Structure formats: structure tokens, C-alpha cells
């Protein structure tokens, strides 16, 4: 949006953005009462004024509460993760122990000839079929 100057220094038509910027600076330089001190606070405190002026007294406390809530939730999440990891580790240890026990049971040989390959195959010259320890029959099976 540009301005058009005529010979008398006056602008006919729209003022440019730059001209408006200068105009407003000059305007407020005269408009602001000289008795007012220069603002010392840089960060504006009010979120949106003046509609939320009523809530301004509550907001700082709410912000602190929400920060504490976030921190508490984060700690709870960390604790939960630690508990889950611990349980998983215990479960894995239990599974490993069972597997080890099972493996130990598997290697518990009952044949005097050592590892016998298939359990279903006869292992002895007399055709005895070797069963698991807890299923040892008193009578041979053919």
C-alpha cells in the first residue's frame, strides 16, 4: 500500500505502512502521560486482558499445580516401568530356571548306555523300550 505525495508534502490517498508506523510512534509519544514511569517489567503477566482479569489470581496457582501434576505423573510412569521391567526380568529368570530344569531332566539318563537318542527306539538288545523316568513300567513293552 503506497502513498502518493503531492507538491505540498501532504499525502493524498492511503498512507503507507512505514508512514503509519512513524505516525503512531509520534502519536503515542504525545499520548502517554509523562507522569507514568517507564515500564520495568518486560514479560507481560496477564494472559489475555481484560476478560481473564478475574482468573488472573487463580492462574499462577493452576500453573504450579499442573507442573506438579506432570512431575508426579512422570515419576509414576517411571515407577511403573521399573516395576514392569522387574517383573519381566523375574519371569525371564523363572522361565530360564524351568528351562534349565527341564533340560536337566531331559539329560537325566536312565539307560546304562548313555544318551539314547529317541525315546521310542528300543535301546537294549532285548528290545526294551525306554520310557521317561516317571513312566517306567515294571514290565517291558514290545
Amino acid at each position, binding site marked *: *500500500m503506497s*502513498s502518493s505525495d503531492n507538491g505540498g*508534502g*501532504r*499525502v493524498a*490517498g*492511503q*498512507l503507507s*505502512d512505514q*508512514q*503509519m*508506523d512513524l*505516525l*503512531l*510512534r509520534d*502519536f*503515542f509519544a*504525545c*499520548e*502517554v*502521560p*509523562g*507522569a*507514568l*514511569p*517507564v*515500564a*520495568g*517489567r*518486560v*514479560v*507481560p*503477566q*496477564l*494472559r*489475555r*486482558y*481484560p476478560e481473564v*482479569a*478475574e482468573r*488472573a*489470581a487463580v492462574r*499462577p496457582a493452576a500453573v504450579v499445580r499442573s507442573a506438579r501434576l506432570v512431575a508426579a505423573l512422570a515419576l509414576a510412569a517411571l515407577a511403573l516401568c521399573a516395576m514392569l521391567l522387574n517383573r519381566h526380568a523375574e519371569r525371564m529368570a523363572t522361565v530360564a530356571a524351568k528351562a534349565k530344569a527341564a533340560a536337566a531332566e531331559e539329560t537325566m539318563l536312565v539307560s546304562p548306555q548313555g544318551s539314547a537318542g529317541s525315546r521310542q527306539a528300543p535301546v537294549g538288545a532285548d528290545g526294551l523300550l525306554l520310557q521317561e523316568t516317571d513312566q517306567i513300567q515294571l514290565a517291558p513293552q514290545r
Partner: protein
Amino acid sequence: MTLSDVWKGCMTSSDSALAGVPARSEEIACFYRENSRELWAIFYSMCSDPERAHDAVQEAFVRLYHHQGEPVRDLRAWLLRVGQNWLRDVARRKSSGCSLLSGLDEFTGRVVDPRATAELHERQQQIRSAMAELNEDDRRVLVMKYSMDWSAAQMGVVMDCTAAAIDMRLSRARRRLAEILVEQGYQHE
């Protein structure tokens, strides 16, 4: 200790001026130094009258000084509420008291050109009335930007939007104000 002593402490912004001022008054004086300009800007954006906005600020602080009830938890919100209510009361009474020429006090003791002063006053009044025709948000960003020299980021906090949105709103507000001024026959020198 009179109220004028408290105000002297406020206006001079000097620690020595606050010597002997009670602690509560000193707190109010410090709060005045830090916040009065912003409060003025808020009231000004509401009423478009610099003198009335200044009166609203002073009225709010005087009432704070005389406040005897429960301690005020949020001074800014309290002062804002008091100032707003005062402005509404004044508008309702349609006070038509004589308003001083803005900036006249600054000429005290100096030789001034009456014509220049009158032209300045007329120009100020024209821009003031044009600003009063803007919508509230446009007026607010212009007041925050040019009376307090806030950055777009700072204004974004107040207006609850991004700095880029603030820049766009500022540009739009200036453009709209320019249109109004031209419609009103404003002569820019």
C-alpha cells in the same frame, strides 16, 4: 505521611524519595512503577482517552492504598478490575468535564507556539477518534506496540497467539487505521 508523599515516591522512582514511607506504601509505590504503564495502556485501549485512562490508573492505586479489607492476592487483577469499574461508572455518568490538552503539562515553563499546540491537539484528536473505530483487538495491539514498545512475542503472550499472527494483526490494524484516517480527511505532514 500523606498520600502526596506516597505519590512523590511513585513519580520520582527514587529510593531516597521513599525514605520514611511505610513498607506497605513502598510496596504499592514499587508496584506502581512496574505496572502503571501497562495498566494505562489497557484502560486507554478501552476508553481511547489518555487523561481518563490515567485517572483510572490513579483511582485504582488510591483505592488500593486505602484498601482495608482482606489482603489482595493478585494486585494486577484487582487494580484492573477497579479501574475497569471506574471507567464504566464514568462512562455511565457521561461525565463531560473539561479535558486538558494532552501534553500541555510538558510545556510548563517553556515558550510554546499556540498554533503548533492547537495543531498538535487537533491531530491527536483525529488519530484518537480513528483508533476508537478500530475493533478491540486491533486497537490493543497498536496500544501495546506503540505505548509500551512490546515485541510481537510479548504481545502474543497477552493475545494468546503466535508472534507471526501478531505481526499480521499489526499490519492489518495500521492499514485499517490509515483507511479510517483518509476517510476522515486526515492530512499527513
